[in-house]
């Protein structure tokens, strides 16, 4: 019963929040609603018994990723409303609606599950984190290490891409002086 209430509540909230993310003109609103949506998604994970995944979701998404976004936003002058020429609504609703319809139809259909069996079963006694740890460090060790390297590479890439010429203002109109400044810097080197 609680599960049902929680599910419907989370579902409704997530959908609304994500719709705001997608539709809002203001970056700040969009980001805030995205962050809240992600918190609620971690709620889904907790309902589903994936405790560790929920915690990771909170730490990585809500903690790290959203922090990154908020820092990035500061470069891009977040207070301004975003002026963009959006794609015609009819096309969006046609495609989005159609994909939603098809996916829902497919998922609503009964799944023939005789052939599906658990390769790495969840044990009742052990905690979720323990199970996850065992599987992650045995079967998925190599992908795990690769993912670690990938994160390292991404970090270095992010630093290099974003870190160059941080002394220049990004929000100022840089059409004339920035060019000169760069030239001056080059000369100085």
């Amino acid at each position, binding site marked *: 019963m609680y599960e049902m209430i929680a599910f419907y509540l989370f579902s409704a909230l997530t959908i609304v929040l994500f719709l705001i993310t997608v539709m809002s003109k203001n970056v700040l609103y969009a980001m805030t609603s995205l962050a809240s949506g992600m918190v609620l998604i971690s709620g889904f994970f907790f309902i589903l018994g994936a405790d560790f995944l929920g915690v990771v979701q909170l730490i990585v998404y809500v903690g790290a990723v959203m922090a990154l976004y908020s820092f990035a936003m500061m470069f891009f002058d977040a207070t301004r409303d975003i002026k963009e020429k959006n*794609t015609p609504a009819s*096309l969006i609703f046609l*495609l989005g609606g*159609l994909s939603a319809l*098809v*996916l829902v139809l*497919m998922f609503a*259909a009964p799944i023939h599950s005789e052939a599906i069996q658990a390769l790495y079963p969840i044990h009742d006694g052990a905690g979720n984190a323990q199970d996850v740890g065992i599987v992650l460090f045995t079967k998925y060790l190599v992908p795990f290490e690769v993912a670690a390297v990938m994160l390292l590479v991404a970090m270095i890439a992010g630093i290099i891409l974003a870190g160059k010429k941080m002394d220049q203002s990004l929000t100022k109109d840089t059409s004339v002086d920035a060019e000169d400044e760069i030239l001056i810097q080059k000369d100085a080197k």
Partner: protein
Amino acid sequence: MENLVYIALFAPLVSSLFAALFGMSPKKQFVGVVASVLLGISLVASLMLASYVYTTGNTIHVTMMDWISAGDLHIPFGFVVDQVSVTMMSVVTLVSTVVHIYSNGYMDHDKSFNRFFSYLSAFVFSMMVLVMSDNFAGLFIGWEGVGVCSWLLIGFWYHKEDVSREENPSISPSWAANEAFIMNRIADLGMLVGLFILYWNVGSLQYDEVFAALPHLSGSILNAAAIFLFIGAMGKSAQFPLHTWLTDAMEGPTPVSALIHAATMVTAGVFLVIRANPLFSMTPDVSYFIAALGTFVAFFAASMALVNRDLKRIIAFSTLSQLGYMFAAAGLGAYWIALFHLAAHAFFKALLFLGAGNVMHAMHDELDIFKMGGLKKTMKWTYIYMGLASLALAGIPFFAGYFSKDAIIETAWNEGTLVLWLILVVTAGMTAFYSFRQVFLTFEGDERYKQYGIHPHEMYKYVLIAMSPLAILAVIAGFFKEPFEHFVTALLPEYHMSEHTHHIAWLLGIVVLVFAVGGIALAFKKYYKGLKRDEALESSWYYKLLANQYYIPDFYEEFISKPYAMISEKMWNSVDMRIVDATVDGIAKFLYETGDGSRKMQTGNLSNYLNWMAVGAVLLLVVAAVSAAVIG
């Protein structure tokens, strides 16, 4: 011994590749010398192999490598040196070596000197593959290889323009080359079908396996295989009705005519019949047909040679005629006699052609014997050589042709096929007549060439010396008949005359001799003193019939070439242009227009691309859903 086999086989290839290096450059004398030396090496290796096989009686079988191995089909690059192939190897390399040396002199002034040697050596290599292969597939490769080289060499002077058939019966070298090639393709189809039949029923193309399996096959299959293989042999050996290419092939340089179109390649058909003798021995009907066809061609070709005025064409007709003799012998079961005549014929016919080449060289490429005469003063040695060769060809006693040709005629008597015997005897007389008609018209009588302002001169000394082995062999080859029989019947079926034939052999010999001497005497009477044109004879219908080769080339032209060209034109206009081309053009146009239309998608705006991507993704989703609904 294995090394000798490879040396004999690959020396010509090396020579060809070496000459090909200089193919585009102007004449380099050393190319000819190197090619001749390499061919000489091949000759020495072949002779050593021959003496090895002769003394020990062993055969050498080498497998160089696997060539085709696919499923049940297994064809190695194997070579066999046995009594038959070593005979062929010796003959081929001997004649080729002489021809190579000869070509140094003959092609002296030709700007494509190096290219010529490249082709000529390539031909020898192909011919060696043909005779040495231990399976039908290798034989076929050599068969096609000599065909290609023959095409290259007939069309060697490809730059000559086409002229009308009245002016030159073979139109132009390229025309003649194409004719030869196409005629051979037609026959090769037959040969291929024959090979397929054998492979289909035996499951192998190795000679020994095929021959071992023959007794288990049904008569109709054997007949079919024999007929189709013989069709291939007919093309290569220019038997009726595929004979027209051989005389037209005389457009090639004369050494080529001597090597390819007299001594070696055209005998490949006979070689095939001899090689496949177990097959042909089991199909008496086909063999009899071969004998009958051979006899017919012998007579038919000799009749055309009687009136021809072209020096090389006369010899070409005589080659045809002699090939007919060989087929007659092979068809009658006397395979070793066919092989013996093949070898003997190679010597004197190559000599005859090379002599003709000397005359041509001296007469500045004039070939009409009516415009020659009295050349013996300036060309004594050529006269002697050609005279010897003609004596051998005519079958005068103690020359090579006497032993081999008489044996064939004797065989015809022995088999009781008296009609064939009679035709062959008459043909022997005709052979003697046309050979000496040609010799006398060329070398004796009044000097008609003077009115054409030609100053003949004798060929280079070294060329004449190089020809001497052929001349010696043309004279003495016949004396090796007994050892030769002993040698090759180790492999080929023995053939003995019956007691009765043996007794009257001397009588039969005299009959043939009477005809031969009669022919020579007639030629002597008519032409020795000089040319007396006989208008009444020349305008008679039979003279015209013979001079025009029984109108067969015209017949082919009118009833095969022209309708074929017409059909091709129709097909080109209606089928190719309207259907095939239109389809291809349509596809291209469709693609072009689609591209033109879809180019508008390429706006450069990432957002548009994303939209298109989403459209695609949704479409795929729909397809997945629908297919899941339909299938699942």
